């Protein structure tokens, strides 16, 4: 859903509907929108990080398997 990274309010409403949110709750959605935008800023920052050579196994054992000494 966040491939485009930045969204306007209209797109946000489309995504909200796809996510199953109730579009009749306008006040709620108006308050939610800036929080989604803030998250997209974090996603943008993380997307820019170079991770080409990083593969994932089990995330829950990420520390245990890799760094326990």
């Amino acid at each position, binding site marked *: 859903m966040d491939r485009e990274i930045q969204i306007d309010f209209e797109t946000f409403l489309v995504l909200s509907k796809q996510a199953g949110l109730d579009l009749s709750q306008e006040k709620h959605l108006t308050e939610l929108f800036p*929080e989604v935008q803030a*998250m997209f800023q974090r996603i943008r920052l*993380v997307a820019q990080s170079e991770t080409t050579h990083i593969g994932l196994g089990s995330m829950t*054992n990420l520390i*245990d398997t890799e760094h326990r000494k």
Partner: protein
Amino acid sequence: MNPEELTNLTVVEAASYIAKKTISPVDLLDAYLKRIERLEPQLNAFILRLDSYAMEKAKTAEREIVAGNYRGPFHGIPIGVKDLFWTEGIATSSGSILEASFVPKEDSAAVANFYRAGSYCIGKLHMSEFAFNGTSRNHHYGPSKNPWDFSKTAGGSSSGSAISVASQEAPIALGTDTGGSVRLPAALCGITGIKPTFGLVSRFGVTPLSWSMDHVGVLSRTVHDGALALNFLAGFDQRDPGSANTKKQDYTRDLDIPPRKLRIGVPKDFIWEVIDQDVKQAFWNSMTHMESVGAEVKEMSIPFLELCNAAGSIVQTSEAAAYHHDNIISQGDKYDPTIRRRIEVGLFISAESYLQAQRVRYKCIKDMISLFEDVDVIATPTVSIGAPNLTDAWVQINGKEVTTREALLRITRVFSTIGFPAISLPCGFTNEGMPVGLQLASRPFSDAMLAQTANFYQQTTSWHTQLPKL
């Protein structure tokens, strides 16, 4: 001893008196219950008090000890339990009305481990709804108050755990930490908060917020009390998919040995972009102190802290949305509107972005681990600010306006994201008289060394002995 003297004892002190039969577990509990009765109208640290239940348990402990069946340092010592740890036959609300009538059929691993040690639950403690808030607000159960100033937040999400220990309503408490929820309230309330390495303490029977970031932790008056608790809490548990298969060890064994040639690293970046001047001053005073007792303190570049923080936020929010998906869609109006929005944000994060955040997390772990070749411990302030007002949604820091949530969690979240052990210790006060926390962190599974270092700080300072006058 009079009731005030009894509730002033640390766990280590109380245990020593109980072992010698100098004090009675029943008298100890009675002193706590009287204090709870007097202070709760102001503090609101408990969601559920268990006075009668606890008294029965204290009487049982007393009978066992008198009969010569002493089980060890937690025998007859009450614990406060954050209200997301399952307690068999006792309601566990997770700070929500959705779960208010949930009565678990078994105990969480952490609670069961304390019970085996002879301890018992004194009550279920206040928390932010589903542990997804850094303040002590709760839409359903009312706000809990900072014992140093009732107009201030106690921090969250383990708000009741910090308040009960700081106000001497309980000698020690269980909490959880996903973005800082043990260390942050510990710092704002002037007590000690230990977040062990990810996987060291089982999360079986703990309502999840984020499976790959949740940690069980301990809030106590001293590092020694917290390390003693770790002796009973740490250990492999196949019921927790994140549990680490580590060797049992005694976290108190080397506590009184001063660390040799201690090297402390202080990040040059990120931390100082948003920081209250009083907090900064208290932090650097603590570093000056550590130098005066033989440590080497050096500033170091850790350029990925902001990135790490962002990755943690993405992971935490995605996992929270996955856990709450059905309820948030069908019963969203039963959540605190703030928590509801925070969870719903996760519905907008794609699988691709979630996985990229996990890869960044992995990269941050690798990068951070390499830093520990040059230092033993990384030190930061625990929180950027002293406790803000209960109702503040935004705070001004050096002319910059930031959300209270960001100001409270931006430093602690880094070590939750990478899962490294971290401890918050009291290290001073703001000009408003609110406690300031010093955070010490180290490499994975160096929890014993970290406790030793933190204990050394407490043995050479007296900040942890200062308590609110109530």
